[in-house]
């Protein structure tokens, strides 16, 4: 485990004493279970269209649709508008969208996209940012200047703007990962693959590494002259060895705290890109919100429900981030990392 016994004790103490961390653990647990077990929990295939079931409202509400058709009345073609009331059914507890796809199933499957992009995107950001920051802080001087100035340039572009431009340039490549539940034959092939928006993972990592680099740099600067680092250097340890064995482990706590906040930021960023139609996958909460835009006056749930799912997920991750921050107190301000 990456935490020392002392930090683990601090985490447990905060968890026991405060309400919000407990809530965070529960909500995040639900999110992970929903994403992992989506094929077991989803009542329908999230991509199957059933047009005769379209725009069903969630349980407890009723919806109306207007249908215009041309009919021959007294030898003349007339446009007739019929309003039909659609009632909710337990077959689709959260209703259906304009193409008759089950909202609950889409929400569950959408959690996979959000979580995967959030975690992998943060990993990409960390792979770029942490070594850069550690090297800048450890060596200082010109190397520090050069690396951190390049970071300043990255910061001048809002992450969403840069992400949009990069996705526009590189297109939207996706990676199809076989769904383990389907491969093992436990559930029938609903969608047989998890479609991971590959370009988006790289791009969100690329536009967010600076925040992690800044934190890593600050830590490394403080550690560069720590007694045990000086001792290691005096017995001839290489810089590479010192960075990996002494600096990185001691800088890890604040990096992890910020990385958690970054997961939330990146989930928001992915949903924004999906809303704009720039991710290349359509099984995503942000994309579903955009699908409901033109239905606001007739079918409010098509935008509202996937939006709640985004808030739920980001809120859960932020609660975990706050818990880590409060327990470990790494001196990060409330919000060290960019937004959507």
């Amino acid at each position, binding site marked *: 485990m990456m935490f020392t016994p002392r930090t683990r004790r601090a985490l447990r103490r905060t968890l026991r004493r405060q309400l919000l961390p407990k809530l965070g653990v529960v909500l995040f647990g639900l999110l992970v279970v929903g994403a992992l077990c989506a094929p077991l929990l989803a009542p329908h295939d999230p991509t199957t269209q059933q047009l005769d079931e379209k725009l069903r409202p969630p349980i407890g509400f009723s919806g109306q649709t207007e249908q215009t058709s041309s009919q021959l009345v007294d030898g003349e073609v007339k446009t007739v508008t019929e309003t039909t009331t659609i009632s909710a059914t337990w077959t689709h507890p959260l209703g259906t969208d304009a193409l008759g796809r089950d909202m609950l199933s889409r929400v569950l499957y959408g959690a996979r996209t959000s979580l995967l992009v959030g975690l992998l995107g943060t990993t990409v950001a960390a792979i770029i940012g942490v070594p850069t920051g550690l090297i800048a802080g450890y060596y200082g001087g010109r190397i520090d200047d050069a690396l951190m100035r390049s970071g300043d340039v990255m910061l001048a572009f809002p992450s969403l703007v840069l992400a949009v431009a990069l996705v526009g340039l590189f297109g939207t490549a996706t990676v199809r990962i076989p769904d383990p539940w389907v491969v093992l034959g436990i559930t029938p092939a609903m969608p047989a693959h998890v479609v991971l928006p590959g370009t988006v993972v790289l791009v969100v990592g690329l536009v967010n590494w600076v925040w992690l680099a800044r934190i890593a740099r600050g830590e490394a600067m403080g550690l560069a002259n720590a007694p045990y680092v000086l001792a290691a250097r005096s017995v001839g340890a290489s810089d590479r060895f010192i960075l990996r064995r002494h600096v990185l482990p001691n800088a890890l706590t604040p990096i992890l705290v910020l990385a958690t906040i970054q997961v939330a930021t990146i989930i928001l960023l992915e949903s924004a890109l999906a809303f*704009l139609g720039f991710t290349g996958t359509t099984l995503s909460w942000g994309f579903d919100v955009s699908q409901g835009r033109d239905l606001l006056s007739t079918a409010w749930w098509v935008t509202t429900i996937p939006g709640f799912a985004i808030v739920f997920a980001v809120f859960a991750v932020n609660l975990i981030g706050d818990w880590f921050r409060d327990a470990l107190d790494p001196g990060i301000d409330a919000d060290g990392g960019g937004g959507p």
Partner: protein
Amino acid sequence: MVSGRFLARRFGHGVVVVWAIVTVVFLLRYSTPGSVVTTIAPLDASPQLKAQIARELSLHEPLHVQYATYLGDLLRLDLGHSYVNNTSVRQLLASRLPQTLDLAIAATIVAIVIAIPLGVVSATRRHTPTDYAATSFSLVGISTPNFWLGLVLVLVFSVGMGWFPVSGPARANGEVISAIDVLYAPQLAGRWLTHLALPAVTLGTYFTALLTRLTRSGVVEELDQSYVRTLRSSGLPPVVIRYQHVLRNALVPVVTVLGLQLGTLIGGAVITERVFAWHGLGSLLIDAINDRDWMVVQGCLIVIGVGFVVINAVVDGIYTRLDPEVSME
């Protein structure tokens, strides 16, 4: 006071960052597979147009000549030609900038007016229901995607209540109006505000939440300092202590983070403009990417990047006023 040397250094640093920004934007066009002409030219460009573009941007010349042409054009404030819209990019950007500024400034005002008092109250009444309410609000606020918030606000206040227009900027005689037009024709202010209200709240919410959190943690930290106890024992009214002494010190870190987070505001503006069919830079950028109009994308990136640097320089100026120690270096 702010020394001349400090200002000169700050200016020099800004110039270097601006140069780096325009260079990164220049290099981006070479980062795609395929030739540069295909990146810059619209999809349906004829061979003649492609040849013309190559000539105008010296694309057949070696890289350093292309770069020199590019920098030379920028110095003359020539941002090139939009081959899709068939106008100059500068004109296109100039026509959209006022709308984005309206939106960003209105959102910032919303954020400051709500967040700073809320953060102070939350910090001074720590662990009371007021504090919990403010903390929860800010936590939900930073977790809410603004495109969704915008749609929900439209659903409730435009579709439901009918108080505000659903989308689009205010227009007079078919022309989009912005704050500058309102200055000349105050009778348009009402219309302008009803159109601006929902987008401003949408964009401002994330920022309000962020600022509330920052203000709260800043004030909490300051309240523990010994000078606060001294001021209290000297009998100063709590309001004076809070807003004149504590807040002033607590704002120093808030202002720094705020400057860095301005990117978030601009990024949020892109999405908000999309939701409300706002006639600003953000909509322009998204349209340009969809139309593969690289010259416009490039222009937007430069204006946004340089704008960020300029605003941060201003923020640094405010910073030195708030904290005299900074200018001593």
